[in-house]
């Protein structure tokens, strides 16, 4: 008995020692720690995975060009999984800020989760760049929050304009996800814009994220004979809705937003989605050389095509890296405050504020998802593209400028 206790004590002691050493080890190497949070698992897991992949490409380019360093400090990205849940997003952002002591945060894709993480970054004075949350509320949470993509009021207008002018539709149905800030917001912006353009929304139905059966709502929609069904939700549900609509004999096109952007969309929806449209941040078949270079790098690393989420994450990471470099050039003394050795000091606080100011001046940055200029509300102004799904492929249809 005694000897067993002895063994346990020895083990516990060894563990404590190891932990202590790990702690010391972290503090002695100076580096730039950047946080990233996203849905690596869960209902819309490709969002988080694509974001991670995009950032990895940016990091490997940094490694190739500058040995992975900015201003002499190695860049390290800490990735946290929020499982696609808003509550979990708040927890992991707390962890990134309080335990990992990050200098900036990249994320999230889903607006409801950016809305959960944003206020925490704002309160801590840590800049947060959301690559692809389109709900307008996200950047209204404070001056430390930025985004690399267009907004839903613009996107809603793009979808309405495309439906009214390109497809010449008069009456459409809306099927939205009531549990999702993005979907509810986009549905409203679409409806307003579509009515202003002379169309009408003749039936609004809703579902809750995670539902798998939409037949009841689709049956109600079918009875009103709309010319199209607008589904401003995420790809999992959009794919299932497409399939079930065709099973119920609904043949009109479905129109979606950038929440459809995932390689899984076509895997889930299959042939049912042919003839449907969605607005997006980019189209892979555009000849832009920057985009094609990124595509090549991505295909070599991940053996597949990136979605726009990955492209936006790549741009977000690069805008952050560029801003860090600018800070180092303009004010090397302040830049030192970002080193991991300075975590929790007033220098760090001053440095993240300076970093924020520099990110806010981003103008004309040539990203793979278009030129990025941040306006006074820290939102990027960009055109949107509309993709058509034809023969199981996403094909560029048109670009709509603000």
């Amino acid at each position, binding site marked *: 008995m005694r000897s067993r206790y002895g063994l346990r004590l020895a083990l516990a002691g060894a563990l404590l020692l190891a932990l202590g050493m790990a702690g010391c080890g972290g503090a002695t190497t100076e580096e730039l720690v950047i946080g990233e949070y996203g849905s690596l698992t869960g209902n819309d897991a490709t969002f988080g995975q694509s974001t991670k992949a995009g950032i990895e490409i940016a990091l490997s380019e940094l490694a190739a060009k500058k040995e992975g360093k900015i201003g002499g400090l190695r860049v390290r990205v800490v990735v946290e999984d929020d499982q696609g849940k808003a509550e979990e997003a708040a927890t992991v952002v707390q962890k990134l800020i309080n335990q990992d002591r990050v200098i900036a945060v990249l994320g999230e894709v889903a607006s409801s989760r950016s809305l959960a993480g944003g206020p925490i970054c704002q309160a801590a004075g840590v800049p947060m760049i959301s690559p692809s949350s389109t709900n307008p509320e996200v950047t209204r949470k404070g001056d430390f929050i930025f985004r690399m993509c267009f907004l839903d009021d613009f996107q809603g207008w793009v979808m309405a304009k495309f439906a009214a002018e390109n497809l010449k539709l008069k009456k459409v149905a809306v099927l939205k996800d*009531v549990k999702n800030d993005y979907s509810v917001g986009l549905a409203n912006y679409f409806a307003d814009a579509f009515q202003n353009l002379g169309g009408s929304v003749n039936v609004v139905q*809703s579902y*809750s994220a995670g539902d*798998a059966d939409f037949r*009841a*709502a689709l*049956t109600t929609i079918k009875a009103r004979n709309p010319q199209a069904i607008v589904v401003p939700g995420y790809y999992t549900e959009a794919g299932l809705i497409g399939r079930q609509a065709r099973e*119920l004999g609904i043949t009109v096109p479905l129109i979606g937003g950038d929440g459809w952007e995932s390689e899984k969309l076509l895997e889930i929806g299959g042939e049912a989605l042919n003839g449907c449209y969605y607005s997006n941040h980019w189209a892979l078949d555009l000849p832009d050389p920057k985009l094609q270079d990124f595509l090549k790098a991505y295909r070599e690393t991940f053996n597949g095509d990136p979605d726009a989420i990955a492209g936006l994450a790549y741009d977000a990471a690069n805008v952050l890296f560029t801003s860090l470099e600018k800070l180092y050039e303009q004010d090397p003394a302040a830049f030192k405050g970002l080193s991991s050795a300075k975590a929790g000091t007033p220098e760090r606080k001053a440095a993240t504020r300076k970093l924020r100011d520099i990110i806010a001046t981003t103008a004309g940055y040539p990203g793979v998802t278009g030129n990025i200029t941040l306006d006074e509300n820290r939102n990027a102004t960009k055109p949107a593209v509309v993709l058509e799904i034809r023969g199981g492929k996403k094909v560029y249809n048109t670009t709509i400028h603000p």
Partner: protein
Amino acid sequence: MTEFLQQLVNGITWGSVYALIALGYTMVYGILRLINFAHGDIYMLGAFFAFYAARLTGAAVEPNPFKATGILLISMVGCGLVGFLIERFAYKPVRKSSRLAALITAIGVSLLLENGGQLIFGADPKFFPQIITATNIPLGMGVTISNQQIIILVVSLALMAGLRFVVLHTRAGKAMRAVSYSHTAAALMGISVDRIITFTFVLGSMLAAAAGVLVALQNPKIEPYMGIMPGLKAFVAAVLGGIGNIPGAVLGGLVMGVAEVMVVGYLSPTWRDAIAFVLLILILLVRPSGLLGQPPAEKV
């Protein structure tokens, strides 16, 4: 009218799935007075077993009815085995303890299956392949039914009829009915109570597996937590029909499915999950023993 009939078709299809799951709850309850909360997770396992079976047999690439039947059988046998193991290692050791201990064990098994499923299958949803190519069959008046819906209805009805035959016309079924009256008396008559309980679990798990495969056929998104809500609702369906009563479970399942679809179609989808529990509260207030349940006889 067309819309109403179409909703009815959708509702009956869903209801028959609830009925299949509810049967498992009601059989186990009838015999052990135990609410087997892990039952909804067996349904999830059924869908996953079929998913992997479909991959192995190549049914995902070239669908044919024989392969689909084979997949259904593989999944049912697999879940029957899981049901056997759960009964043997989780419920049997606590059978002589209080009913509360058994109930908590059931919740534990349920959590184990959900989180174990997440560990093994991964947390992101999988998409069940089309093992039977979908086609639409018009029923007239603008109402359509898909061949998958027909398969769900036919297979559920066949399984329910099979169950009825087993319970009413076989020796094992007779023994089940005897055990459900009294364990002691059945044991005195030479019935191996343990074996009958195991048999009941295996049978119930196989029905849940079939429900899992049938649902995955129609709603291809499968994930480790997919069993929670249908499990709860099927439990409500079993209570609705009168728990312990087999025809009651079928009736309860159908009422539940139709009620749910009608609520989504005519009220609001946000009420979808609430309706199940509103029905539960109503039935507990008005007819505590369920639609077809016998009020407990007063022992004098």
